């Protein structure tokens, strides 16, 4: 394992880091230091973090090393992770990238944090995001936008943009994000990493600063599918603190990845190759599908509702929930008052308040819920015919910094291809399939029915396997 010592430890995948730690090729402190150094070196360009918890991280790494020397086995023992800043962390500032919470230190850990801590991980810090997760760019962050590691003149996407950028730039081994509609898959696509949005209710929302409560799904952002599976095993499961979590048993996802995809029915819907779809995105995704076909997958053309209908449904439901979820920041607690809300949050509060007003409820919220049911049924019908659906994740490549200016519906449009599956609470994963000529990553999403994480992960894993030797996989951002 000498080669490992030569390369930068922070470049390792979670799987590799685990093996290295287990074999005592390096210590968790060394691994953590490598990440912290990379953070120090690249943060001025990336702004992926709101808070870096260097001292705590090294402390945790030391404890992990002690455990490792005692041959303790834990799924994330000694592994450095970055966490989106909307996960409550006991004793560590948690801002959701909003000035309103700039000095808020939670007195409790979110369930996800509790689980990854119990799994032995080292928390490097809290990653930047769109304020309150409102957006798909990180440009609504009150602490400045993050930048795309592949081209810092471009955005990383969002709202989990800091987490995706941090993984892509090897500042961390892996990261935790959260998705309401696109906030994991879209930045993963723009940053060229793996982003898994689990089924709604698969991972606890307890302690995650609420955005759209009926949609929010925490999940991993990683360098590989296998890493994603390892983290999901830790995160998933029924939580007594979140009544919407499912009691369905958690599978050993990382051990069920190798699956023969022969006879697997892959649904392709023309509706997802929308007008205005970036030509290079289209080309790469279609080629990727062909590769899966060659590996034995059965491609079937299916008809799905035009994803544009999901935009309206999503916008109404999410903003209605936002208007209620943000009501607690009334200026009495948390230090800052309502004046500290930036424009995007204010717009969403006003929109949601209006949509829920008496007389409009039936016209908007209720109607949106009805259409949501129609979309759920549409997917159910589709999954009667196919096992998974494959589509581009984002209609565009990572857009340049400033793209969201004067575009109030930016996020909704950027997320058009992930919104329907979010509304339906489905499992979905973004995996990188290549690069544009301009050197920006291209992502493809695999969508499965609710609680089909095992299936979407294994399809993603298969794709990784059959494209393992492709040249683009060797690329690293030049920072």
């Amino acid at each position, binding site marked *: 394992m000498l080669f490992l010592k030569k390369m930068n430890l922070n470049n390792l995948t979670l799987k590799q880091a685990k093996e290295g730690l287990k074999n005592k090729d390096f210590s968790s402190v060394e691994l953590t230091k490598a990440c912290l150094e990379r953070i120090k070196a690249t943060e001025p360009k990336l702004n992926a973090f709101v808070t870096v918890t260097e001292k705590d991280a090294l402390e945790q790494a030391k404890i992990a090393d002690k455990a490792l020397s005692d041959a303790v086995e834990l799924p994330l023992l000694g592994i450095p992770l970055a966490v989106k800043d909307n996960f409550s962390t006991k004793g560590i500032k948690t801002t959701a990238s909003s000035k309103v919470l700039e000095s808020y230190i939670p007195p409790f850990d979110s369930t996800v944090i509790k689980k990854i801590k119990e799994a032995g991980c080292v928390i490097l810090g809290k990653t930047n995001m769109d304020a309150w997760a409102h957006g798909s760019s990180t440009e609504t962050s009150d602490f400045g936008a993050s930048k795309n590691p592949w081209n810092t003149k471009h955005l990383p996407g969002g709202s989990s943009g800091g987490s995706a950028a941090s993984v892509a730039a090897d500042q961390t081994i892996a990261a935790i994000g959260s998705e309401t509609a696109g906030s994991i898959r879209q930045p993963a696509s723009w940053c060229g990493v793996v982003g898994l949005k689990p089924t709604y209710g698969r991972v606890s929302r307890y302690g995650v600063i609420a955005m759209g*409560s009926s949609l929010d799904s925490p999940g991993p952002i990683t360098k590989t599918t296998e890493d994603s599976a390892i983290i999901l095993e830790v995160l998933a499961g029924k939580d007594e603190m979140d009544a919407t979590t499912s009691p369905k048993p958690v599978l050993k996802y990382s051990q069920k990845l190798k699956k023969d995809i022969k006879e697997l029915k892959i649904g392709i819907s023309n509706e997802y190759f929308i007008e205005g779809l970036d030509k290079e995105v289209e080309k790469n995704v279609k080629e990727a599908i062909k590769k899966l076909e060659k590996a034995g997958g059965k491609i079937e053309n299916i008809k799905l509702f035009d994803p544009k209908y999901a935009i309206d449904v999503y916008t109404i439901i999410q903003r209605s929930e936002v208007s209620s979820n943000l*009501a607690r920041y009334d200026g009495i607690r948390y230090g800052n008052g309502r004046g500290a809300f930036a424009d995007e949050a204010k717009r969403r509060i006003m929109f949601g308040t209006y949509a829920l007003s008496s007389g409009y409820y039936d016209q908007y919220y209720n109607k949106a819920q009805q259409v949501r049911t129609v979309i759920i049924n549409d997917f159910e019908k589709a999954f009667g015919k196919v096992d998974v659906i494959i589509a581009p994740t984002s209609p565009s490549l990572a857009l340049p910094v400033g793209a969201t200016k004067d575009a109030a519906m930016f996020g909704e449009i950027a997320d058009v291809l992930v919104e329907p599956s979010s509304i339906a609470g489905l499992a979905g994963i973004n995996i990188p399939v290549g690069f544009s000529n301009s050197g920006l990553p291209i992502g493809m999403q695999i969508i499965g029915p609710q609680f089909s994480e095992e299936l979407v992960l294994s399809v993603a894993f298969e794709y990784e396997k059959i494209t393992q030797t492709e040249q683009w996989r060797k690329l690293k951002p030049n920072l």
Partner: protein
Amino acid sequence: MKYKAVIGLEVHVELKTNSKMFCSCSADYFGQKPNTHTCPVCLGLPGALPVPNKKAVEWCVQIGLALNCGIPLFSKFDRKNYFYPDLAKGYQISQYDKPFCLNGHITLQNGKKIGITRVHMEEDTGKLIHETVDEKKVSLIDFNRSGVPLVEIVTEPDFETADEVKEYLQKLQQIVRYLGVSNADMEKGNMRLEPNISLKKDGEKGLPKYKVEVKNINSFAFVGKAIDYEIKRQAEILDEGKTPVQETRGFVEKNSSTVSQRVKEEASDYRYFPEPDIPPIRWKEPEINKLKETLPELPNVKLNRFQKQYGLSLYDGEILTKEKTLADYFEEVFKIGQKNRVTAKQIANNIINKKVDIGNIVPAKLIENILQSEKKEDINADELRNIVRKVLKDNPGIKEDYKKGKDSVIQFAIGQVMYILKKKIDTNMLRKLILEELK
């Protein structure tokens, strides 16, 4: 002009579950140090989520069942959005269009049925405390009460008098105490009343166009006073040909009046929507049946049974069934008493007339007391008559006083006889004997 009062009632009952409605904090907040019974959930901290208290939900359904409500198989929680400093989340978790219980009633003594529109579950708010600290007037918030389970019971506007309202409230209080789900203590705020009152002309159909809600009432007596005051006040306004203002008024204890607090032109817009953090509740028939089966015997049923089974009068029955603990005590005593041939009537008389301290006198002891006090010894009738005659002869004043109409002197005569006799005998029989001799 003659008017008819149209009165409806909203009652909030605080449940006495161990933990709060949506978190595991202790719900026993009364008299506790401020902000000591709190956690991220009841403080509404970012990311904290509510998980409903199963016991509270079951109790709410049991209240509904006890009030003859139907229990829809589908129910859900909703968010009621409004701003108030004591409301941690900026919304209250309540129930809007799918409450746990619908369409019940309570039957008053006169046979009138008071319709119960709905019974639903919600959470209590924190409490504002206005104080002067360092010569500065400040408002402090105590979140100990935040998230304590509340059941709201809403009636149809079926009441016409303050007395009907009071009787309903007594019955309701009795029922929730029977169920053991709340102390329903008005003074501690376990039970809060909000009557709404309006008047219509005698014979007029439909509901009046306005309605006045009265708040801050903390006793059943005051609710009567508030209603009476409102009926008079509104009648005077109507007499002048005007319509009373639709508003919320507060009850003022010191002169039993009401004052305007807030004018309500139209219903507030609470922007209700389904609580996304709590999945809807879908009951199965057997679950509801089980809750029904575990209901204790309710006051009206118990009263009927007491009258029939023990041959008690309505009066005695009502006193004995007023509180479940007393009713249980009575039955316990009766069971033991049966072996000693003590009748239900004897026990009832003893408990009611002697105001027995049921907390201190165990049932067996009470039977002992009864037997002791009613123990009679056989006595020769002639011997007794001789003693009576002797007493009357030795005390000629007795006959004189009796002729003057002083009946109380008989008691003195009884005492004298007993003194000589030194035995416990049936005093009624003795009294009869003395009266015979006096004739």
